[in-house]
């Protein structure tokens, strides 16, 4: 592709009329490969998902036309209900925990007079490590005779009990994501003008009061941006739940999050038609929550 482009351009103008037509053709040529890929791998699959969702679809293809039957089934699907509930529970806790941890770390790092760059990079490190490897480490540390129990004196397999498995995932994900949250908050912290702090200091406000009365409210655009990212990310969480539960969503469906459920319907039950409708429902839930968040935050921001 590149070679033909180069060759064509070396012959000035011939056969292509004006310079503008030539420029347009070269433009189309330069974007051709990505655009075709987006068409095949993003836009076509949306339509195809809608199409598949109207069939009972197995390994070998269509089995039966069911129309909206898959969507009707979804409304009464007990396990889908569990998955959505787990997903929302996880997302809420994960969003709050990683925002709190990330903001706390950002405020501390912002205070550092020396080595600020070093601490910033160090804390971001868990965010770039492979999710699979991190989950393996968490399985080890949170196992019944693992390091965590050894330090804290607890005595339980955190991923092995239905009461704690989801919370272990919340802890694991909040820990890895907090580095990213910290970086965003640092950028927002540095955009707060220093004279507000001078005014607060002259009024004799302490560090705690200054944080809650000034820093926290002024970070509102940051809260909105970060929470939007985390809510979407939380609803899409898959890797950690899949690896920690060995693909089962167990124990007792406690880590069955929406995407894991989708995976199981597709590849364990081999019901592609139904899985496609689960995927579409999931996308609608994600869009709906994002919109809701935008509307509520947007309104209070306008006041």
């Amino acid at each position, binding site marked *: 592709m590149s070679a033909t*482009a180069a060759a064509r351009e070396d012959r000035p103008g011939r056969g292509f009329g004006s310079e503008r037509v030539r420029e347009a053709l070269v433009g189309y040529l330069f974007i051709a490969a990505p655009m075709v890929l987006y068409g095949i791998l993003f836009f076509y699959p949306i339509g195809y998902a809608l199409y598949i969702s109207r069939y009972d679809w197995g390994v070998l293809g269509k089995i039966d036309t069911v129309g909206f039957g898959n969507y009707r089934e979804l409304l009464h699907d007990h396990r889908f209900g569990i998955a959505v509930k787990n997903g929302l529970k996880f997302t809420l806790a994960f969003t709050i925990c990683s925002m709190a941890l990330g903001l706390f770390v950002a405020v501390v790092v912002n205070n*550092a*007079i020396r080595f600020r760059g070093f601490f910033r990079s160090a804390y*971001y490190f868990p965010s770039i490590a492979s999710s699979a490897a991190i989950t393996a480490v968490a399985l080890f540390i949170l196992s019944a005779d693992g390091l965590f129990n050894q330090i804290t004196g607890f005595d339980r397999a955190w991923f092995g009990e239905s009461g704690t498995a989801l919370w272990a995932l919340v802890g694991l994900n909040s820990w890895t994501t907090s580095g990213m949250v910290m970086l965003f908050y640092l950028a927002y912290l540095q955009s707060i003008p220093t004279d507000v702090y001078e005014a607060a200091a002259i009024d004799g406000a302490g560090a705690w009061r200054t944080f809650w009365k000034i820093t926290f409210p002024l970070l509102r655009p940051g809260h909105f941006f970060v929470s939007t*990212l985390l809510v979407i990310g939380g609803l899409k969480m898959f890797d950690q739940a899949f*690896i920690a539960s060995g693909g089962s969503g167990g124990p007792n469906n406690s880590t069955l999050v929406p995407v894991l459920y989708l995976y199981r319907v597709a590849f364990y039950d081999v019901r592609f038609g139904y899985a496609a409708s689960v995927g579409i429902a999931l996308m609608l839930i994600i869009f709906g929550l994002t919109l809701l968040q935008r509307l509520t935050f947007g309104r209070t921001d306008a006041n």
Partner: protein
Amino acid sequence: MADADVPTQKDVVPSAEARLVPPAPTLEPALPGGTVPVGIPGRTAFERSRTIVVYLLLFGIALLYFVPFLWMISTSLKTLPETAYFSLLPKHPTLHAYREALSTFHFARYAANSVGLAATVTCLNVFLCSLAGYAFARLRFPGREVLFILVLLTLMIPDQLRLVPIFVMFTNWHLLGHYHGYVLIKLASAAQLFLMRQYFLTIPRDLEEAAKLDGAGYFKTFWKVMLPLVGPAIAAIAILEFEGTWNDFFWPLIIFNTAPDHYTLPVGIFSFVSEYQTLWPQLMASSVIAIAPMALIYVFFQRYFVAGMASAGVKG
């Protein structure tokens, strides 16, 4: 007024320039203590205790972030019986777990797959995204804005929606269980294209026009004049792409599910966990193998990670 506070990605990422260069640490801390005017009594004592508290906290947090990794490395150097003793330093450090992970449990093969796939995807994407980013930033053609909106729209389509249709399509096209099937999926990355376009927009037009006057064609102008000017952006998207592919678990799991010799490191770790969960030293050794190369790249190129993170944020 109403939209003044609604953050878009521009709020966080004011310009391509700012995104690629992480904010330089300011010397003056932007917090109350640092801005109290000199001369207020008790300031130095207050400042000193405050500094001590801050650094204690900083090291405490560092402990929280690093102990799991240190524990991983330490365990990978132990033998299975020794993992019962909770000492950070292994008594008789041995590479036995690494040898076993690499040969008996095929992690050498998985590592080779990961390296090959990540390198292929990165090279192809850097070329395609910079070429298309240049076209969207500089060349004029009908429908350019609409097409660019389509590019951005792909960022909103979640992978979970694409999972079933792409699996069915790839089954029909016999792309499952093949390296090129996976590469094809990773080749469409709008975040990187977006980043390149934004960066090209910041390059002054003069140089290009000079090249054109010299009679250079469009591709030659792109390749010889423009590409060398966007080095930082190339580095950022290359690292972002490499990291994304190296750590990717979802798509390799789906594409290579039935072809264990095609597994990448993350999928290999999953299959090891589900089969031999309690062989901790070997599992930790394989985790080190999956994390260490990224860590090394991070140490040397960390400022580009920060740049990449901004667009990973865009990706959502």
